[in-house]
C-alpha cells in the first residue's frame, strides 16, 4: 500500500506525458480519416484499430486522455479556488455572507449533480467550435462543482477560527489579516489539496457521463465521454472498444490511490 501512491502518481504522470508527446509528433492527428481503412481491427499501424470514419482510435484515445486530465485538473483547481474563497471567507468571517452561503450550498447540494449539469450544459449555444464546447463543459463543471468543497472548507475555517491557537494569537494582538495569512490559510492547505484531488475524478466521471449523453465536446474533438459513445453500438463491441473504459477506470483508480486514505473517510 505504501507503494500505491507513488505508483498511481507515476501512472497518471505517464498518461499525461504520452498524450503530450503524441501531440508533438508530426503527422499524428485525432481527426485524420483513413478512408481506405474504416472499422479495422488492431494492427501494427493502428494499435486500437479505426472507427467507422477511419480515424485512428489510439490517437483519439491519447488525445482525449491529455484533454480530459488537463481540463479536469484545471476545472478542479478553479472549483477549489472558488470553494476556498467562498467557504474560507464565510467560515472565518461569518456574518451575513455565511448566512447567505449556507442555504446556497444546501440548495446546490440538494439538486442532483447530473440534473444540474444536464440543464446547464444543454443551454449553451449550438453553434460553437468543438474545442470551445469542451472548455465550456469543464468551466461549467467548475462553476457547479464548488459547493461540496466549499462546505468542507467553511467547516475547516470555522474550526480554525475557534481553535485555541487562533484565540491565543488574537489575545497576543496578532491582526486579523496576519492571523489569516500566517495561520489559517496554511492550516487549510491539506483540506484544499484533498478537495482538489477529490474533485478531479468527479469531474472526469461527470464529463464521461455527459459525453455519453451527447452533451460534451462536439465532433471531431475526442474526449473520454465522446469515445465511450462507441459502447452504444452493440454490433461493434470488440475488445479494443473497451480500451477507453479501461483508461478512464485506471485513471480514476489512480486518483483514488493518490488521495490519502484518511481524507476519504466519513
Amino acid at each position: 500500500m505504501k507503494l500505491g501512491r507513488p505508483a498511481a502518481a507515476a501512472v497518471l504522470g505517464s498518461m499525461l506525458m504520452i498524450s503530450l508527446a503524441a501531440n508533438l509528433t508530426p503527422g499524428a492527428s485525432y481527426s485524420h480519416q483513413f478512408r481506405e481503412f474504416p472499422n479495422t481491427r488492431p494492427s501494427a499501424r493502428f494499435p486500437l484499430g479505426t472507427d467507422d470514419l477511419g480515424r485512428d482510435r489510439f490517437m483519439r484515445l491519447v488525445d482525449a486522455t491529455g484533454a480530459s486530465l488537463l481540463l479536469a485538473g484545471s476545472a478542479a483547481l478553479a472549483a477549489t479556488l472558488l470553494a476556498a474563497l467562498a467557504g474560507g471567507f464565510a467560515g472565518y468571517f461569518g456574518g451575513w455572507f455565511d448566512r447567505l452561503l449556507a442555504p446556497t450550498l444546501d440548495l446546490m447540494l440538494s439538486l442532483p449533480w447530473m440534473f444540474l449539469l444536464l440543464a446547464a450544459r444543454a443551454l449553451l449555444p449550438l453553434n460553437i467550435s468543438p474545442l470551445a464546447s469542451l472548455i465550456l463543459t469543464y468551466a461549467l463543471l467548475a462553476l457547479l462543482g464548488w459547493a461540496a468543497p466549499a462546505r468542507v472548507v467553511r467547516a475547516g475555517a470555522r474550526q480554525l477560527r475557534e481553535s485555541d491557537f487562533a484565540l491565543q494569537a488574537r489575545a497576543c494582538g496578532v491582526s486579523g489579516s496576519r492571523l489569516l495569512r500566517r495561520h489559517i490559510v496554511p492550516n487549510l492547505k491539506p483540506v484544499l489539496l484533498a478537495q482538489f484531488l477529490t474533485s478531479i475524478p468527479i469531474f472526469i466521471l461527470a464529463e464521461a457521463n455527459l459525453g455519453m449523453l451527447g452533451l460534451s465536446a462536439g465532433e471531431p474533438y475526442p474526449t473520454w465521454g465522446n469515445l465511450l459513445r462507441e459502447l452504444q453500438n452493440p454490433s461493434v463491441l470488440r475488445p479494443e472498444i473497451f480500451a477507453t473504459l479501461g483508461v478512464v477506470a485506471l485513471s480514476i483508480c489512480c486518483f483514488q490511490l493518490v488521495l490519502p486514505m484518511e481524507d476519504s473517510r466519513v
Partner: protein
Amino acid sequence: MKNRLPRLIGQLGALTATMLAGMILTGALVRVSPGFDTDERELDPRFDESSRNSIRAERAANRDLLPFYARYFRAALRGDLGMSESFQRPIGELIRDRAPVTAGIMAAGIAGGWALAFALALPAVLCRQRLFGGSIGMLARVVMCVPSAALAILVFNFGGPVRGIVALVLFPRVFDYLRNLLQAAYSQPHILTARAKGLGTARILFRHVLPAAAPQLLALAGVSATMAFGTAIPVETLCDLPGIGQLAWKAAVARDLPVLVVLTAIVTLLTQLCNSVFDWVAAGQGVNRA
C-alpha cells in the same frame, strides 16, 4: 412536542424557500444562458421563414423572466403546471405518466444498492482476514471507477436487468460509508465487551451496532435518494426508459423552460423532503436514546 412544533414550522419554511429559490434560479439560469435564443428547430431547413418567425415569437413569450414567473405562479396556484413547449402536452400529465417509472427504478436501486452494500460491508468488518475485507473494498472501488452511463449501456447491451443499474452504481458509494460506520461502531468499548462475553452476532448488530450508527445511516439514506435520481437520468436516457430522468434530458436538449422549472421544483422538493424526514427520524432516535 412543544419544542418540535416551531422546528417543524421552520423546516417547512426553509423547504418552501429552497424550492422557490431553486425554481427562480433555474429559470434565471435558463434565461441568461447564451443558447436560450437558439432553437434547434430554427436550424431545420424544412421550416420556412414564417415558421421560424412563429418559433421565435413562441420563445419571446418566455423572454422576460418576471412576467414568466407571475404567469407561472398564478397558474400553479390553480394546479396548472403549464404546457411543455417541446412535447406540446400539459407538464402535469407528462410527470404523472413518467413518475412511476422513475420511482420504480429509484426504489429498486436504493433497496438493491443498500442490500448489496450491507451484505458486503458486514462480513468485511467482521471478518478478521484483511485479504477478504481488502478484496471487497477493491471490488467496490473498481465499480466506482466506471462512469454510470457506461455501466448502464453495458448492462443494456448485454441484456442485463436495467433496473438493477442504479443499485450497481449506488452500492460502492454506500458501501464505503457503511463499512467505515460499522467499523467505528464495532470498535466501541461496550461492543468489544459484548463480543468478548460471547453475545450473538445478530444481537450485537441489531441491539447495539445499528442503533449507534442509525443517525448517520439515516443521513446517508437521504443522500442515496439524490444519488439514485442523478443515476436514473443516464440510465433512463440510454436504456430508453420513459421516466422523469429521460424527460429532464429531453427538456434540457430542447431548451424547454417550463418543464425544466417544474422538474427543478419537484426534484428540490423531493430531495429536501427526503433529507428532512431522515433528519427528523434521526433526531427522534437521538431523543429516544437519550
